[in-house]
């Protein structure tokens, strides 16, 4: 099994699906010859030409709207939104149009499109190029949300997304594009709504989305040194969410920390934590802990930016306290 980067994994997924289905096309800013600022789509235009790898003006609402209309009438567009922060620009087309058309039409119209965008801070890009806005999208009924945590997930989830008949938003961590993982050579797709247990444990469940999965895995290694056995779960998709894998784990470990790079207030961590509290309350030995990005706009200065996102050390520290019973009344 070859080791490839997350960027290559995304590129392969797009190419394979475009070869399989000629209604699939890619649209966005600088996706053709430039291959995006992150070089994720490099080379695709040579195989599929500018007919299917479509460079647009800098008009995010415009090309998002075009994708919705194309999807409603028989195409399967993949929209490349250069930065997750630009979601605010496309919100009407995504949330008022794409998300609602199937429902509003009583099931007659479909919007099979994929919006690929990114998340993640610590790239020294400041407040308008560093946000992790998946919770905004997950809040809107009618949109599916996938959060690949490595090249393996990125390829498998994207291929599933392209074949889905609903609008799907995929958030890739822009700091992970060069991170490598083993990816099968043969065709595979990862189902939505199926979480992965990456490490089994008995003392605490660490639930980490996107790159927070790696943070949780590192935290688990640190905890191992203290004799604490942590289970690590990657939900892979937020919508649909694999509640049963999470609940089953927490019922066994009796403690949970939810780690996500979105802002903590009213966010992904709150949603998952509340579901655990509602549905596994009597199995818990301690409150469910949430760890999201700090509730501040992402600052530029490295010394400030680095403390806004959860770290492995931070997660391990919380887990130690949780297991020691210190966090019951002292969050």
């Amino acid at each position, binding site marked *: 099994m070859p080791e490839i980067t997350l960027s290559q994994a995304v590129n392969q997924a797009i190419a394979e699906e475009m070869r399989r289905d000629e209604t699939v096309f890619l649209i966005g800013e600088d996706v053709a010859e430039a291959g995006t600022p992150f070089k994720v789509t490099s080379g695709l235009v040579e195989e599929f030409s500018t007919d299917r790898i479509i460079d647009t003006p800098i008009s995010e609402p*415009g090309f998002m709207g075009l994708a*919705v*209309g194309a999807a409603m009438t028989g195409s399967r567009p993949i929209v490349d939104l250069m930065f997750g922060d630009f979601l605010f620009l496309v919100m009407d087309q995504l949330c008022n149009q794409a998300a609602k*058309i199937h429902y509003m039409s009583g099931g007659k119209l479909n919007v099979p499109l994929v919006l690929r965008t990114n998340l993640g801070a610590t790239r020294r890009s400041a407040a308008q190029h560093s946000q992790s806005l998946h919770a905004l999208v997950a809040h809107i009924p*009618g949109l599916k949300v996938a959060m690949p945590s490595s090249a393996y997930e990125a390829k498998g989830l994207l291929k599933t997304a392209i074949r889905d008949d609903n609008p799907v938003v995929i958030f890739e961590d822009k700091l992970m594009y060069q991170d490598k993982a083993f990816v099968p050579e043969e065709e595979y797709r990862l189902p939505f709504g199926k979480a992965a247990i990456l490490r089994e444990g008995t003392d605490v469940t660490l639930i980490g989305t996107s790159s927070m999965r790696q943070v949780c895995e590192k935290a688990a290694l640190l905890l191992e040194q203290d004799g604490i056995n942590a289970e690590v779960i990657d939900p892979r998709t937020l919508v649909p969410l694999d509640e049963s894998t999470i609940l089953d784990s927490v019922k066994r470990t009796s403690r949970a920390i939810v780690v996500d790079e979105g802002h903590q207030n009213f966010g992904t961590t709150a949603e998952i934590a509340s579901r655990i509290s509602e549905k596994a309350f009597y199995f818990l030995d301690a409150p469910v802990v949430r760890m999201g990005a700090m509730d501040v706009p992402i600052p530029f200065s490295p010394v400030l930016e680095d403390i806004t996102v959860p770290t492995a050390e931070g997660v391990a520290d919380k887990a130690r306290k949780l297991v020691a019973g210190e966090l019951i009344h002292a969050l």
Partner: protein
Amino acid sequence: MYTQMAKIRVFEDNANQLYLDAKMPGLTHMYSGEEAVAVGICEALKVTDKITSTHRGHGHCMAKGADFRQMFCELLGKVNGYCRGKGGSMHIADQTNGNLGANAIVGGSMGIATGSALRAKLQKSDDVTVCFFGDGATAQGLMYEVMNMAALWKLPVIYACENNGYSEYTSTDEIAAGEILERARAFGIEAFSVDGQDVIAVNRLASELVEKARKGKGPFFIELMTYRYHGHHVGDINRTYYRSKEEETEWKKNRDPIEILGTFLKTEGIANDDELRELYLKVRSEASEAVDYAINADYPDISEVDMHVFQEG
């Protein structure tokens, strides 16, 4: 075209009555007075051609082939409506006739229409998409983004601006700087103005542009000068603060699109008064039969509330 316009007028009269009788949930936006726009354009389209519509969309739906029963059922939130009662007046979609749906966000469908045209070009299909919108929507930024791309890529889309003189409760003169047509021309899009009360003129222009767009010579922009007889919505009764009763009377008396076509048909000896009256009565009885059907139709079962959030499978 006379029948089609009569159907729209009669549909709206019934919809208004359903509102006044408190039989219809919510509000609705009447198309009365603008019939020649929808009919003149949609009569130039094939069933495979697409349209996108607006919050004032009943006329577009009827002109593109919708039937009374499913329309009234949707207005009343009944399960036999076009959207199983989930869309209502502002979201009627009828994909079998190429109607991609009315849209309650002003200007919200401009991307969809242009995207449909992009799909036609990519898939080498010869269908044309018409994007209906009002003068108010010309103030939305999305319009300029998508017209730019439509012009760059020569997409088979026709932007049909129904200029009824009012952007909700405000005169268009107060919200639109310069000339609306010039905005389209700035992108190199050929733009035309037409009397939106003259269905023959509208249809002649639309037919010519649709055929050109079909051959890859699009996009085009049409500004159709028209008038809405009712308020912004059915509840907008006292509107003298933004337009005069005299002005309304003038349009209704001298510029009614159905009267204009009727006069033409009589002058040309194509139809006489009796025939037109009979036709109108027939449409009225069809509509009232459909209203009765809709009133007696079932509401959706409450188990449908969480159906259609996602396409399954």
